[in-house]
């Protein structure tokens, strides 16, 4: 059992004896903190795919460890501290709710590098990263607008935070462009992962006439509900959810973390790692659009792929004016694009959406 020797060397490293990780013969130890189980088929699953990509890329040069279903709060502090004590050189904390905890632990372990997903607080040894999922939502919204016959699109939202509101706005703007008669019905599920609640929400939306269901929650339950209802389509969220192909799952938004993780670990090995904020989209490969199936007419697929390409190349920004806020007041002038600051703090609906954002 060489665990102990490995552990003490790595721990000595963490204590700050100095040498950069690359100079050691021991593998660099990378920890991952997950908010859900790795088998959730959504958010945590995709982060774990990223971890597996790291292992495949670096082979014996890294050792990865993870802890799943870590509640956001006091337990996260302990999970990360124990990881750091066990000799982790770098820790990826993969949920927004770990924000204050990451900073607390990072302060105690200045030699350990932390990467916090979707947060906005940084420190010398804490970077943040997130993906521009709203770019994927634009493509999804376009397909949804073109595919609906009832002109009612259901949207299962999780929590009323900027990330989710941005997605609703982006999907709505592009659905409306494709089909001016379209209407959105938003249900707030107040969960990221709860198959029973998500199924209830999907069923309620279908009963209100929705024939396209968009989801910002992680389980496949809405797709199962769509399949049971028949004539209703939906999209994979976070992971491909390919088992529901070709319908009801007609496409998907993919979270692709592997390349970013590999980049950052390489930077740490090379000694070029610095605290930074990363917000990558389709162009950088962090957001993907899953296969658009044959359930979608060829013409619509072409349009969707063209939209995806124009976003990827930077030629088109999904939030390009003229766009008004829900109350009719102007937000973006003709041709103006949204700045990242406004997008990151987005707490309003765009014009045309009905209902209120709960608070």
């Amino acid at each position, binding site marked *: 059992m060489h*665990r102990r020797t490995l*552990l*003490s060397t790595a*721990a000595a490293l963490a204590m700050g004896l100095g040498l950069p990780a690359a100079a050691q013969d021991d593998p660099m130890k990378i*920890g991952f903190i997950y908010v859900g*189980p*790795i088998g959730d088929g959504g958010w945590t699953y995709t982060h774990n795919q990223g971890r597996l990509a790291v292992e495949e890329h670096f082979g014996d040069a890294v050792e990865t*460890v*993870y*802890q*799943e*279903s870590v*509640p*956001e*709060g*006091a*337990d996260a*502090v*302990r*999970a990360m*501290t*124990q*990881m750091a*004590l*066990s000799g982790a050189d770098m820790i990826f904390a993969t949920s*927004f*709710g770990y924000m*204050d905890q990451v900073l607390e632990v990072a302060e105690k372990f200045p030699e350990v590098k932390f990467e916090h997903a979707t947060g*906005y607080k940084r420190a010398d040894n804490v970077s943040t990263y997130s993906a521009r999922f709203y770019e994927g939502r634009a493509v999804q919204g376009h397909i949804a607008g073109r595919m609906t016959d009832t002109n009612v699109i259901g949207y299962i939202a999780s*929590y*009323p*935070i*900027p990330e989710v509101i941005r997605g609703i706005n982006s999907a709505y703007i592009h659905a409306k462009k494709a089909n001016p008669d379209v209407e959105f019905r938003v249900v707030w599920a*107040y969960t990221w992962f709860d198959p029973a609640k998500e199924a209830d929400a999907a069923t309620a939306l279908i009963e209100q006439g929705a024939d396209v269901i968009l989801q910002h929650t992680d389980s496949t339950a809405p797709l199962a509900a769509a399949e049971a209802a028949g004539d209703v389509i939906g999209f994979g969220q976070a992971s491909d959810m390919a088992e529901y192909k070709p319908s009801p799952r007609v496409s998907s938004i993919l979270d692709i973390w592997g390349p970013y993780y590999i980049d950052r670990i390489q930077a740490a090995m090379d000694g070029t790692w610095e605290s930074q904020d990363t917000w990558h989209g389709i162009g950088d490969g962090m957001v993907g659009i899953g296969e658009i199936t044959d359930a979608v007419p060829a013409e619509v697929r072409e349009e969707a792929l063209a939209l995806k390409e124009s976003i990827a190349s930077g030629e088109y920004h999904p939030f390009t004016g003229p766009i008004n806020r829900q109350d009719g007041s102007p937000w973006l002038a003709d041709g103006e694009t949204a700045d990242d600051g406004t997008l*990151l*703090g*987005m*707490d309003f609906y765009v014009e045309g959406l009905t209902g209120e954002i*709960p*608070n």
Partner: protein
Amino acid sequence: MIALEKRPQPSRLWRAATPLLAVALTMLAGGVMFAALGADPVEAIRVIFWDPLFDPDFAAYSRPQLLVKAGPLILIAIGLAIGFRSGVWNIGAEGQYIMGAICGAGAALALYPAETRAILPLAVLAGALGGWAWGMIPALLKVRFGTNEILVSLMLVYVAESILASVSSGLLQNPEGMGFPGSRNLAQWDAAANRELIAGTGMHWGVLTAFVAVIAAYVLMSRHILGFQLRLSGEAPRAARFAGVVPGRVVVICFAISGALAGMAGFFEVAGPAGQISIDFGSFYGFTAIIVAFLGRLHPVGILLAGLLMALTYIGGELAQLMLGLPAAAIQLFQGMLLFFLLATDVFVNYRLRLGRREAA
């Protein structure tokens, strides 16, 4: 043939032995499960039960964490056990815990950013009142309308969770939080923070309160007339009535104590280890405390030990995930086995095994 025979008196020996037996059986069955998952069972058991206490790399950090984790469990379980011994079934401590945290944090945040030492005690009181008030709902409904307190208190947990989600992104939301749900961080605000009393020990006000509650509960239940009345109404409700104990009063007292203690636990947690009110603040302490109460035989000292043992399986379980790559679900199963074996071996408190005698069917 094997037959169970009712004992004339519950066995005192078995009553004391079953928790130990349950732990041993859990280690055995858990070991088999870990082996099936491809981990070395002996090493897994050692990582769970030994490393948090004695491993040179972890122990200095894990030992204080045991107190942090056990504190709320013990505080809640002490209150619940008083009720359980009196035949009052408060299953909704999780809700009282959440409401205590909301009321305590709310009272403190109403005074933000004042810097006076009065805030912490005031907020503790508000937390206790919040938990008490939430506990009074099932208690009064039972006394007035004869509703089932098990159902009402349990359902109120879900109401409390919804209120928690609402205040996290509304009333108590951090105005400087960029629209994200969650309150200000109380642990970063000196006047309200529930800090470690002695650095590096994990001993915060909540843990201290839990220890005081253990002693107070012991005195109450063994030495005080009220404790006698409570126990009597649990063991022999008719006799208690003849002795002049009003059943409604027992219900109200039990819910008041357990609600207030759970509420305080909630505030100590939010002002210390958790830091802020957030949608995911509830962490099942209120439910786990039910296991702790029974594992500790509803006796204050037993609960103290059971709380520490439960905390050990949590912290050791996390280490086992980290060091051996065991899935989180395996650790939860392991904890579940503990209660399962305890309930199973509990049969022998009231029954004895007869071997080799054929009974008529």
